[in-house]
C-alpha cells in the first residue's frame, strides 16, 4: 500500500518540477528565474567560487571552549518550541492533507499507520529543502557543509516527529477527559518547578549577578555559560542537547560520535508516533477543508479572505446616496482599512503628538532625547513614504478579484482610479502628518535656533503640503504594476514559491524605486529653482513654503496624470487575466 503513496508523492514532485521548468518558456517566469537565480547566486553560492576578502562567515561553528554553551542555547531554543507545542494548541490532532488526498485516501482500504507514514514521507520534502536553505544561509557551504545539512535535517526531523507525537498525546489526554487547561497547568507547574530548582542552585552556588554587569557582554556570556554548563541545567537539557549536537560538531569524527545518540532519539520518536493509535481523521478533514479554502482564495486573488475572516467595522462617516461617486470607494476602502483611520482617531493622535512633543521638549532639557525621538519619527516618515504602500493595500490591489463588478459601475475610469487610491493615500498621509507633528515639535528648539522658527515652520508646512500628493503618486506605482502585470502581481502577492517568484518580487521592488525617483525629479528640480530664487529675493523663511507649493503643484499634476493613466489601464484591464498563470 505504501508503494502507491510513494508513487503519488514521487509523481507529484516530478510533475510540479516539470511544470516549473516548462513555465520558464513564459517571459515573466524566465526573467523572474534569471533575476532570482542571480540573487541566490550572489547571496549564497558566490562564496563557493569567490575567495572572500576579509569577510567573516556567519557559520555557528562551535569552538571547543564554547561548544557546551552553544549546545545548551540550541537546546533551550528547542525546549521553548516544544513547550509552546505542548501548551498553546487546544484542538485534536490533525494531519494536513489536501482535499484530493482526503477524498482518495480516507475512504480507501489504508490503515491509519500507513497514512502516518505517508505524512512523514511527505514532510521530508519540506525538511530537506529547509535544511538545505539553512545550510546556505548559515554559510556552511565552504566548510563542513554536509555536517550542517545533516545536523539541520536531524533537528527538523526530530522536531517534526515530536510535534506530531505531542499532538497525538494531546488528543489522547482529551479523550481521557483531561481538559486543555488542566494539561497546561500541569506543564506550567512542571516548568516553574524546574526553573525554581535552577534558580535555587544558581543562588547557592554562584555569585549574584549585578544589574551593572548587564553592560558588559563578556560578563553576561560567562555567567550564562556557567549557569548552562554546570549544575542541574546540562542534565535537564541533556536529551535536547543530543538533538543539537550533530549540527555543532567541528569535524567528521565528532559528528559521527554525536550521530548515534541523535539517531536513537529520532527512532524513539518515530516509534512513539507510529505506535500512537489516535483518531485524527475527522480533525484532518476539517483542517484540509480550511486549507483548501485558503488555497482557493489565494488562487482567486482574494488574499484577504485567505488570511483571516474580516470583522464587522463601523463606517468612518455617513455615506450619503448623492455626491461624487469616487467617495463611495473611499468610504468602502476606509471600512476595509479599519476603524483606526476614522477622523476622530487621527485628530486625537495629532493632539497627543503635539502634547508629547512639547512635554518631552520641556522634560528633556539639554539632553539628546528630543533629537533621538525626532530622528526616529523622521526615519519612520521616510520609511512610510517608501514602503507604506506595501502595507496599505485598500485599492485596486485589494479589489482586482472584483474587477468585473467595478467595471459594471457607471463611473468614468479615472473616477474609479481616484476612488480606489483615496483611502490608502488618506491613511498614509494621516500617519505621516502625525509623525511630522512629532518631528517639528521635537526639533523645534534646535531647528529654530539654527534656522529661525519661521523657516522651520515653513519646512513643516511644505512637507505637510507635499506628503499627500507624494503618497498619491507612490500608490499609483504598485497599482499600475498590478494592472499592467496582473499575473505577476498575483504571483508576488500569493507568495508563490520558487526562484522565479523571488525574482519577480525583486523586479517589482526595483521598478517601484526607479519610477519613484523619476516622478520626484521634476518636482525636486522646480523646488530647487524656486527655493534659490526666492531665497535671494525674500529670504529663507519665504523660500521654503513657496518652493514647496511649486513642488506640490508639479506633483499634483503628475498625480492627476497618473490617475488618468491608471483609469485607462483599468479600462484596458482584462478581467480574465487576473488569475491566469
Amino acid at each position, binding site marked *: 500500500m505504501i508503494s502507491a503513496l510513494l508513487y503519488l508523492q514521487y509523481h507529484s514532485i516530478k510533475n510540479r518540477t516539470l511544470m516549473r521548468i516548462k513555465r520558464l518558456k513564459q517571459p515573466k517566469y524566465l526573467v523572474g528565474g534569471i533575476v532570482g537565480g542571480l540573487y541566490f547566486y550572489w547571496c549564497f553560492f558566490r562564496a563557493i567560487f569567490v575567495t572572500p576578502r576579509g569577510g567573516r562567515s556567519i557559520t555557528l561553528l562551535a569552538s571547543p571552549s564554547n561548544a557546551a554553551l552553544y549546545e545548551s542555547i540550541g537546546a533551550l531554543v528547542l525546549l521553548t518550541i516544544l513547550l509552546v507545542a505542548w501548551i498553546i494548541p487546544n484542538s485534536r490532532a490533525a494531519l494536513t492533507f489536501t482535499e484530493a488526498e482526503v477524498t482518495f485516501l480516507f475512504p480507501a482500504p489504508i490503515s491509519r499507520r500507513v497514512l502516518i507514514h505517508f505524512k512523514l514521507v511527505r514532510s521530508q520534502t519540506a525538511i530537506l529543502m529547509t535544511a538545505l536553505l539553512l545550510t546556505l544561509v548559515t554559510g556552511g557551504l565552504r566548510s563542513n557543509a554536509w555536517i550542517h545539512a545533516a545536523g539541520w535535517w536531524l533537528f527538523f526531523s526530530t522536531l517534526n516527529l515530536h510535534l506530531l507525537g505531542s499532538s497525538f498525546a494531546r488528543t489522547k489526554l482529551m479523550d481521557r477527559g483531561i481538559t486543555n487547561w488542566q494539561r497546561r497547568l500541569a506543564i506550567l507547574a512542571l516548568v516553574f518547578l524546574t526553573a525554581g530548582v535552577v534558580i535555587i542552585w544558581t543562588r547557592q552556588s554562584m555569585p549574584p549577578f549585578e544589574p551593572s554587569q548587564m553592560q558588559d557582554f563578556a560578563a553576561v556570556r560567562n555567567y550564562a555559560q556557567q549557569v548552562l554548563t554546570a549544575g542541574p541545567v546540562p542534565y535537564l537539557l541533556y536529551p535536547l542537547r543530543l538533538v543539537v549536537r550533530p549540527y555543532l560538531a567541528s569535524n567528521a569524527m565528532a559528528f559521527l560520535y554525536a550521530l548515534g545518540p541523535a539517531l536513537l532519539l529520532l527512532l524513539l520518536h518515530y516509534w512513539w508516533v507510529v505506535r500512537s493509535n489516535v483518531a485524527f481523521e475527522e480533525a484532518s478533514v476539517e483542517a484540509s477543508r480550511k486549507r483548501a479554502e485558503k488555497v482557493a482564495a489565494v488562487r482567486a486573488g482574494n488574499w484577504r479572505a485567505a488570511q483571516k475572516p474580516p470583522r464587522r467595522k463601523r463606517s468612518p462617516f455617513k455615506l450619503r*446616496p448623492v455626491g461624487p461617486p469616487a467617495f463611495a470607494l473611499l*468610504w*468602502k476602502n476606509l471600512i476595509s482599512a479599519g476603524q483606526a483611520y476614522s477622523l476622530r482617531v487621527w485628530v486625537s493622535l495629532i493632539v497627543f503628538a503635539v502634547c508629547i512633543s512639547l512635554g518631552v521638549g520641556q522634560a528633556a532639557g539639554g539632553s539628546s532625547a528630543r533629537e533621538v525621538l525626532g530622528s526616529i519619527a523622521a526615519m519612520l516618515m521616510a520609511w512610510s513614504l517608501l514602503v507604506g504602500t506595501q502595507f496599505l493595500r485598500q485599492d485596486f490591489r485589494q479589489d482586482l478579484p472584483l474587477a*468585473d463588478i467595478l*467595471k459594471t459601475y*457607471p463611473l468614468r475610469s479615472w473616477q474609479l482610479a481616484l476612488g480606489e487610491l483615496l483611502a490608502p493615500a488618506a491613511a498614509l498621509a494621516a500617519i505621516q502628518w502625525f509623525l511630522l507633528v512629532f518631528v517639528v515639535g521635537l526639533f523645534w528648539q534646535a531647528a529654530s535656533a539654527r534656522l529661525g522658527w519661521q523657516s522651520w515652520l515653513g519646512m513643516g508646512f511644505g512637507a505637510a503640503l507635499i506628503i499627500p500628493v507624494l503618497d498619491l503618486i507612490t500608490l499609483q506605482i504598485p497599482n499600475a504594476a498590478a494592472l499592467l502585470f496582473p499575473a505577476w502581481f498575483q504571483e508576488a502577492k500569493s507568495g508563490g514559491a520558487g526562484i522565479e517568484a523571488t525574482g519577480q518580487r525583486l523586479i517589482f521592488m526595483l521598478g517601484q524605486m526607479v519610477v519613484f525617483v523619476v516622478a520626484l525629479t521634476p518636482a525636486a528640480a522646480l523646488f530647487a529653482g524656486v527655493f534659490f530664487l526666492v531665497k535671494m529675493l525674500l529670504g529663507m523663511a519665504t523660500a521654503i513654503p513657496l518652493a514647496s507649493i511649486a513642488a506640490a503643484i508639479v506633483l499634483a499634476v503628475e498625480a492627476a496624470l497618473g490617475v488618468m493613466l491608471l483609469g485607462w489601464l483599468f479600462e484596458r484591464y482584462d478581467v480574465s487575466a487576473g488569475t491566469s498563470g
Partner: protein
Amino acid sequence: MIQVEALTKLYGEFVAVNELGFEVKSGEVMALVGPNGAGKTTTLRCLSGIIPPTRGSIRICGHDLGQDPIAAKRELAFLSDEPRLFDYLTVEQHLAFVARIYQVKDYELVADQLLGELELAGKRNALPGELSRGMKQKLAIACGLLHAPRVIYFDEPLTGLDPMGIRRMKDSILKRARDGAAIIISSHLLHLVEEICSHILILKDGRKVAHGTLAEITQQFATQAGEMNLEEVFFRATSEAREGQQ
C-alpha cells in the same frame, strides 16, 4: 432596450463570440443557452461593459455602451452566478455603497423593500462571510436591483438557491419583466428557460444557431415525429451546428 449588432469578441485568434446580433424589447425575457464554451458568459460580459467587444455595437436603452458607457451602465444590472461581494462590508453597507455609486436618492425605502422581499431584513449587520451561499446570492440580487435597472442580466440565477428561493427568484424575474425590464438569462437549466423565458437564443461556438420565441424555434427544428420540447430542440440545434461545421 437591448440592441446588439455584429458583436464579435476575439481572444487572440480565438473567436469567442462571432457576429452576434439580436434585440430584447421591454418586458421580454430572453434565454441565452448553449453548451459549455459556447460564448454565453463572454456575451454577457460584453453586454454589461465588463469587457470591450472586438467589433460590433451594443445599445442599452438607446445609449451606445461603447460611446456613452456611463449612461448605458446606469440602466443595467449584471447578476453573476457566483455572488461577488466585498468581504468587509455588511449587508446594509453594501446597499449604501451601491446607492452612492448609482446615485439612488431615497434608497433606504427601496432597500427595506428589497431586503424584506429577499428575506434579508434580519441580516442587515451581517458580513458576507456570515451568510449562506443562497443569502449571498440574495444580497447580490438586492445590490443589483437597488437602482431599478431597466436591463438585467442573470448568469445562472438559480445556483445555490433553495426551493423557496428558486420560486421567489422566478417570480421576481417575471415581475421585473412585467414592470417593463428587458431581461437576459444565461442558464443550462432548460426547464427554467421554458418556464419563464419569452425568447431563446441558442449559441454554439460563439455563433447564433437559433433565435426566436419557443414556438418559433421549436417549429424551426420540428420533425415529422411530432412535438418537441426545448431539450430536444437544444440538442438538435447544437448537433446540427456541429455537423455543419464538420
